[in-house]
């Protein structure tokens, strides 16, 4: 018997620069059961969500239909540390559609990654230079310490770096 797929999903999230002060981040989810698109507009330099809208083309979940009002709850939220708690809190109050809040988070993460990319492009090509580059990154922002396997004790990138005393993230 051929192994026919039971389920397929494709989620595409992208960020575009509209003008010097504006980013547009969109997340499009298409799978066997669902077809939804969420788009947020982000103002620079504050990284504040100035608009959010969505379109649900297909869903089996009634709670995910007509959710533009719920999306408006995130207007004014600043993309940065602590944003997930705020987005979940604001949207959780307004809708039972978990997928929608997740898509807003994906849009926000993509915005952060778009800036991260610019920083990472400055990393030197050679192994030694690379190690130094990332070790300095942790030194300058100690919150990164132990945030992932690459920055955990035992990694060459944090050798000689004094670990913070506490749980670094609230």
């Amino acid at each position, binding site marked *: 018997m051929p*192994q026919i797929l*039971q*389920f*397929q*999903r494709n989620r*595409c*999230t*992208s*960020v*575009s620069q509209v003008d010097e002060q504006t*980013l547009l981040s969109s997340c499009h989810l298409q*799978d*066997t059961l669902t077809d939804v698109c969420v788009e947020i507009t982000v103002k620079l*330099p*504050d990284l504040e969500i100035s608009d959010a809208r969505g379109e649900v083309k297909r869903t*089996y*979940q009634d709670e995910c239909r007509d959710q533009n009002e719920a999306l408006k709850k995130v207007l*004014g*939220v*600043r993309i*940065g*540390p*602590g944003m997930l*708690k*705020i987005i*979940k*809190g*604001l949207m*959780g*109050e307004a809708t*039972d559609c*978990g*997928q929608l*809040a*997740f898509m807003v988070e994906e849009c926000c993460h993509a915005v952060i*990654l778009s*800036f*991260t*990319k*610019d*920083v*990472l492009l400055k990393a030197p090509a050679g*192994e030694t230079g690379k190690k130094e580059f*990332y070790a300095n990154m942790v030194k300058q922002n100690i*919150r990164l310490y*132990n945030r*992932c*396997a*690459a*920055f*955990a004790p*035992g*990694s060459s*990138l944090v050798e000689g770096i004094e670990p913070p*005393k*506490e*749980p*670094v*993230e*609230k």
Partner: protein
Amino acid sequence: MMMQTFMRNKLVSISRKESDTLFIHGILDDDIYGIEMDMEIRVTNLTILSLHGKWNHWTTPECPRAVRFLQGAVGLRIDEEGFSRKINKLVGRKACRHFANLTLECCHSAGEAALLVKWEDQKGVNPDLTFEAFLGQADTPDMNVPAGASASSAPGPSRPSVQARYNFKEEKGTVSGGMVIDLHVHTSPASPCSSAPVDDLIQEAKRIGLDGICLTDHNHLWSRESVEELRQRHGFLVLRGNEITTDQGDMLVFGFDRDIKGIIQLKELAEEVHASGGLIIAAHPFRGFLTFGVGQLGLTPQKAAERPLFRSVDGVEVLNGKVTGEENSFASEVAATLGLPGTGGSDAHEVSEVGLYATRFLTPVRDENELVDALRKGAFTPCAFRAEKTEAVLP
């Protein structure tokens, strides 16, 4: 022309390997990271049976270490309470958050695929069963968002009543250097992220010479009776505050008696707090904002000062123990631009952190009312208490 600056694609495909097992293949590919994952999940109890990942492209030379830590997710049920949180902790923190992201994508997809599988199985018995009718009798998988959080309908706001005054030595508030209070501390278990029992925190605060601490647990209102009991027992000034999460970030609130749960709009909070005679201080307003590229946005103190949140607060926390020196300096510049007073607080989550930063009051503060009055008058300055203390004892 509108230029695309970043793109992430995730692809999940699921087949039924055996009657009770789903095989899931996930791919995450973006400008920075490329990863793939193979998983097996049991249909009947939605348990992760196996999980293997590999990197296609990555950033640091140590990223490959992440793969071995993926095994932490094996054995979890994808419909168990707090599943997303567990994955973010077990995979995101131990391995890599991008692997955690793909794991969640695969697991959510698997939950939906399991629904389809179960529906098809039931159609074997009842060929006319529609998917909608089937859903009426099936549970949908848990994903991402916790149950809606909301502000509790506690009794309306009121001016804090006069408490029994702490019997401290009057001269303490008048000695050179003023009265130093750590305005931002978290205790366990009131703040789940803290590991500092309140008694230990108070003892440490006394030991290092602070004049008082203010308990500011996350969305937690200490009762007057509990705080009074702590004061009496320790012979030390313990005050009440609250760190409330709003749509504009965390706010330290003083002189406000309503117990807020969940996220509240800052505008709404400000109206209530000010109507009740309380005050709001913007907590660590630039935490994490000036690092990892975002700091290169050209944000100036003048521009940052235009943020609407600063129109709703009475002060800015300009010395916070959990942010970088650069972020504290920036907050200080913004406060100066706005003409708002600046406070200091350790944001201690561990006993050893209390007093790292604090606020020096120029007038005596013996209870909650005097704290609010002193904050309103702006008769205080932030200070790096532990550093000052260390310098003072050095020859």
